């Protein structure tokens, strides 16, 4: 297993190099970003000085190699807008995104499994049909539109939920301030409801359909029939026998889901003014804050790759047939 982990980690380095290279080229392909960091009235001499100060005067490959060299030593550069180490700016925003992603994921799993199981058990009925129609809708509606509609309905009209804002939860926990985290938990969750639903509805719908099809396949297998023949209760057959095996493809999907949800939060964070890494990345791209974009990309890609690795390990644990 350790060999496998080492191999995957080495692949991670290649993935990170790839994404940084692509984002680097993407940001520079539009032209010289220096002009965004000088006054309208700057002379050519001042523009040249700024270009040198910002490091944009060197050939692109030198800029990229310098960045990679520094990154290998843990230095991702300084944000051009925030004038702080880019990794610090990302680290400040990351907890909010993790909170939102985890809560969205929780919604996507907690609601998807019972809905999928229910649809499978009532196959062909109105219940099944309703769940599947809702599932298709959930996969069809863009998250930003859903977010705006929820704001209009639940925020402006009914005033059930806050429209924007964020109450930190992970941040106090990471600082060891459990009391503050517990105190702010209800408010934090309350602020998370609408953005999490906007992010998570797509995954919820997909997972529900996945659980349904997986359950249908499992319920028709011989060992389930045997379990029923042994006189086990239907609850025990479904939960202990069918669901346990139907669970495997869902676990795989959940791992990928985290990365998918991380990507999905970008737009939703803007709609709900959520101070996370998605909004940070969006602004950094608009402002051509290249060190900050690179830091965001590296962190997001790193998380994505790490989660995939963890899912593979869990998968091996759940299914003894899988050998790493």
């Amino acid at each position, binding site marked *: 297993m350790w060999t496998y982990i080492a191999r995957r980690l080495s692949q991670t380095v290649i993935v990170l190099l790839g994404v940084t290279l692509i984002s680097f080229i993407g940001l520079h392909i539009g032209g010289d970003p220096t002009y965004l960091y000088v006054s309208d009235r700057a*002379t050519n001499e001042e523009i040249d000085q700024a270009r040198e100060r910002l490091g944009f005067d060197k050939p692109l490959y030198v800029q990229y190699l310098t960045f990679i060299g520094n990154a290998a030593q843990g230095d991702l550069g300084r944000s051009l807008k925030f004038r702080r180490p880019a990794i610090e700016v990302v680290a400040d*925003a990351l907890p909010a995104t993790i909170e939102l992603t985890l809560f969205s994921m929780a919604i996507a799993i907690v609601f998807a499994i019972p809905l999928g199981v229910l649809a499978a058990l009532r196959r062909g009925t109105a219940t099944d049909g309703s769940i599947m129609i809702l599932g298709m809708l959930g996969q069809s509606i863009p998250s930003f539109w859903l977010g705006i509609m929820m704001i209009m309905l639940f925020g402006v009209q009914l005033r059930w939920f806050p429209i*924007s804002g964020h109450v930190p939860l992970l941040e106090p926990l990471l600082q060891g301030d459990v009391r503050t985290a517990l105190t702010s938990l209800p408010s934090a969750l*309350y602020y998370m409801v609408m953005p999490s639903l906007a992010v998570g509805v797509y995954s919820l719908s997909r997972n529900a359909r996945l659980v349904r099809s997986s359950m249908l396949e499992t319920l028709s297998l011989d060992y389930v029939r045997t379990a029923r023949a042994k006189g086990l209760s239907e609850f025990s057959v479904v939960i202990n026998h069918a669901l346990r095996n139907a669970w495997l493809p869902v676990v795989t999907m959940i791992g990928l889901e985290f990365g998918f949800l991380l990507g999905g939060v970008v737009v939703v964070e803007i709609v709900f003014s959520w*101070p996370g890494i998605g909004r940070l990345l969006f602004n950094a791209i608009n402002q*051509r804050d290249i060190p900050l974009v690179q830091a965001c990309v590296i962190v997001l890609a790193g998380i994505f790759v790490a989660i995939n690795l963890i899912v593979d390990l869990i998968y091996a644990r759940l299914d003894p047939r899988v050998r790493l």
Partner: protein
Amino acid sequence: MRQLKYALIVAGAVSGVPYAVLATPSDDTLVVGLSADIDTLDPGEISSRDASNVAEHIFTTLSSISVDGQVTPRLADTYTVSDDGKSLTYHIPPGHTCQDGETLDAEDVAYSFNRAADPANKFTGNTPGFIFTSIDFKDAIAPDPEHVVINVGIKSSMTPGFLTEVFVHCKDSYEKMSLDDATTHPVASGPYQVVDWTPGSEIVLEKRQDPGNFKTIEYRIIPEASTRTAELLTGNVDIITNVSPDQIGAIDNSNVARVEKVQGTRRMYVGFNQSAMFDSPGAMAIKKADVRRALQYAVDVPTICQQLLSIECERATSLVNPPQGNPDLTPYPYDPAMAEKLLDEAGYPRDADGVRFEMTLQAPRGRYLNDANVALAVGQYLSDIGVATNVELMEWSSVYVPLIRKHEAGPMFFLGSGGGLWSALYDMSDLAAVDSGPNYTDWDDPRWFSRWADIEAAKSPEEERTIINEMLKVFHDDGPWLLMYFQPDFYGVSNRIDWTARRDEVVELFDAKLAAK
């Protein structure tokens, strides 16, 4: 029954929470929704308008610009200008302190200026990058605790106005801080101090001295326009900036808030690029003043304002914001027949296809209020008089900005340029020299550029004013801009608040107060 009980408990909890969390701000708190995050509050680094608007409440300045564009006292009560116009001496009355209790006197003012200018700090904010460049700042000296002398390299009547934008802070506290700390831990010298700052989310200020009617000012960062509007309509926010024109009706009809519409100071124009790099027949045509003048008549600016910007506007007569412009000038009327007549006379008749010449109009998408549609409308107006115009819409930061800055946009391009209320020269200084950065059209008319020396030599404000008016007449008649409008700004204001928006994008909250019930 047990399930019902649980359901009732959950419903009760959920319905109870909103009233706890979604409370309208208290009477001593003012909440402002900003469209952009605040990246720094180091006085030397501040460059964005939003950051500057927040900093205005935290840091004092030597003087300030009033609503009607006058330089008025703030920290300094008086100032004098040396005979050569290159030294300004400000008197700082005693009795000022900073947030940490340190006395704020002339030495601190001098330090604030010199710190911003210090190359070792590598600041790129508005003060070193724009103000100091514009006045050729040399140094600041404090001969005694009540006087500070600001030395500059250029004699200009604009200098006192420029200096209103330089934030002043205490010396000892900032000497102790690293540059990183100064970015996020401002030590106030003005009426309010920062008590909480969650980057990307909110900044909370608390009042420490007059002026100001609210004990707390809370700035919330809400980038999405529709979300800002929703927060205003639910009463969670009192003032929002950058209201989208399509949401004005919803706010005005809400009975809980209104939209303050002001014609701002940003000058929107279509530039006629005179650069030699453009040599198509159309590009050569707009190098002639009579063709440019003809095109002025072709565009119906008031209708563009009304239909695309949701505001009634008067067309600009020059590059100077009213009331500082030449009062004798009148806006070009919309008169397509006149435009066609002038083009015929200039030697550009319609051909068999009805085309006089072809033209490319480049414009940004998403940078200015409804910019793409305004550019398309201008293109259509020009096409209507036989100037077949192809409108190219471009991404702002990556594509358009480099083109503009290299003076390579065009031959015609749509652009906005920030202006001010306090000085005609400030607005005119875009074209301070043929080779100046913001002369994006490469215009070189000596009737304009040779007059800058006359302005510097002017012996009285009246003489200076006469020269300015003559220059503006040249600009109006033969200038390189197709004159458009001053970009409107829309602020959403809760009916609970009494506050009037300014024209110059400055969101000053000292006079804001609760509306009479």
